[in-house]
């Protein structure tokens, strides 16, 4: 991984080692962040769109390009391609992250709604806007500064094999992001998986809203919770009504990021046999990749998750009177 020094004074071995290690660590962080976001490209696209960073492109295309860029840069640094231009690119990326986190923090501190975006690490890491700002500032900036230590004054030609590996890796990340929604990775890519306590699934700091805030009864008994999109009700409302009407099934609760007016309109239009509660998008968005998504809660703990509705075949028990 070393650079061939063609000219100029060679830095000390220790400095070079520190610089390489820091660059590799920074590359690893960027790569992990890229994979985390690639697992749910739609959420990342929504985040870019919300922050006005799509540069006029369709949000998903912008998200795939951003993933290729971030992942490619991460691979470059991880594979030891430590050049002034790669560090300048990394600096621009890190500054962008820090500025965006700072902006989210400032908005949250001034009463803006909780950001529903997935953040730099997708849904894998749950951080408050302030924590995200300070952690990124401390971790990424220090790694970035250290990565410049021991930088040779002038490097030789680019290593073709490593560059080819970076190209292949970036393409693989884009492919992963493209196919990820079809892969059974919901439990990995979201904050919702068997074993977690619903009281600890929260968003925001002041006020802090948790699943048990919008559905206090989840702490007792068994309940199927289905996350839904009211605009897409034609695709799930009847089936969920049938399931919730079947005797013997646990009670069903639907959660949607919707206004009270939307909930009211849905209720009169579709006649749900289940309670429908609205919840902040910031609470719900990290819990799914595609809607509907369901999970079974037993005494406050998630015991099962499903992509889709609680039961595909729910053909009996329709209220007919």
């Amino acid at each position: 991984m070393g650079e061939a020094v063609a000219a100029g004074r060679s830095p000390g071995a220790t400095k070079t080692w520190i610089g390489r290690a820091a660059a590799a660590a920074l590359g690893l962080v960027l790569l992990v962040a890229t994979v985390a976001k690639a697992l749910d490209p739609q959420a990342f696209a929504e985040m870019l769109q919300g922050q006005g960073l799509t540069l006029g492109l369709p949000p998903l295309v912008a998200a795939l390009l951003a993933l290729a860029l971030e992942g490619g840069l991460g691979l470059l640094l991880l594979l030891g391609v430590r050049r002034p231009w790669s560090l300048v690119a990394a600096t621009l990326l890190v500054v962008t992250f820090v500025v965006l986190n700072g902006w989210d923090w400032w908005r949250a501190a001034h009463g803006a709604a909780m950001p529903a975006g997935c953040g730099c690490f997708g849904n894998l890491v749950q951080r408050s806007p302030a924590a995200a700002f300070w952690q990124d500032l401390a971790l990424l900036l220090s790694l970035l500064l250290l990565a410049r230590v021991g930088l040779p004054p002038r490097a030789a030609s680019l290593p073709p094999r490593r560059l080819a590996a970076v190209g292949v890796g970036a393409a693989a990340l884009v492919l992963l992001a493209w196919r990820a929604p079809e892969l059974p990775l919901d439990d990995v890519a979201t904050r919702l998986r068997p074993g977690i306590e619903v009281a600890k699934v929260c968003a925001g700091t002041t006020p802090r809203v948790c699943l048990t805030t919008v559905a206090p009864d989840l702490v007792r008994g068994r309940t199927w919770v289905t996350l839904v999109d009211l605009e897409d009700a034609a695709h799930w409302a009847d089936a969920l009504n049938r399931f919730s009407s079947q005797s013997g099934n646990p009670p069903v609760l639907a959660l949607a990021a919707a206004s009270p007016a939307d909930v009211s309109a849905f209720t009169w239009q579709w006649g749900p046999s289940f309670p429908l509660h609205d919840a902040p998008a910031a609470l719900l968005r990290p819990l799914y990749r595609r809607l509907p998504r369901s999970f079974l809660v037993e005494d406050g703990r998630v015991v099962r998750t499903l992509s889709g509705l609680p039961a595909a075949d729910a053909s009996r028990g329709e209220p007919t009177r």
Partner: protein
Amino acid sequence: MSPRSYRQPVLILLAAALLAPLGAHCVQAQMIPADAVLRDFEPLGDYYLEVGGARIPEVELFRSEKAGSAVLVFGPGLRGVTLLQPRAHAVQTLSMTKVAKRADGRVDVLADAVLTPAGDFTIDGREISFTIEGKAARLREKPYLLGLHPGRDLLLHDATYSFRAKLYQPSPALVNALRQATKPVRIRVFFGSWCPHCQQMVPRILRLEDALAGSTIHFEFYGLPTLYGEEPEAKRMGIDGVPTGVVYRGNREVGRIAGEEWSIPELAIKKILENTPKSSR
């Protein structure tokens, strides 16, 4: 026996004859089970009924999720019961004798109720229009409860609050602990009558207020509009979510309760009072 001594049994028989049909209905109501679907109706407090353009305040509204969010409308001023079934957009009527009220405040339609079609309903924004006893009727959402109110105003405004309040049982140990407070405590709860989280949590606070009656802890409720960020009092107090409770000991704010903390309001209040510096107690 004197004529006077005959009068009493005759009166009793006459009274029995008059009350017999009512008694028979009660017995019948008790014997006939609730309908398998049209049951478990709970008070629906955020709508009111207008018939012929005039509000009928005494009318009771109930909704049942089990019945596909069907709504029952009945009460003084109406001859029968009107049933609105959202999935079919259908309006039906039934006899008042086929509706049974339960002790817990829920309502069931009896299994032998005959449902008579009475047209359909239309959704116009947040208003539901239909015909009731030949007159144009509308279910309209109530205006939001705004400004400062005692708890009883909330109970009067929305029947859901009192129904849900009865379902919550505060911890007796925590209530007892709160009753030991000697210095007056005032809790101003900023809420929105439009807010679903408030409909979940505010009934718990109202139930707790009832349990703490006679203590030094008092509650007041401040209703906010949907865009409460611009409401002067909310702005002055820095309210960024509802419901938010501002706890005062004397005139000094000693803490706030928000979000998840409302799940057990008595615990949240106790924590704040315990964490208050002794000088302010």
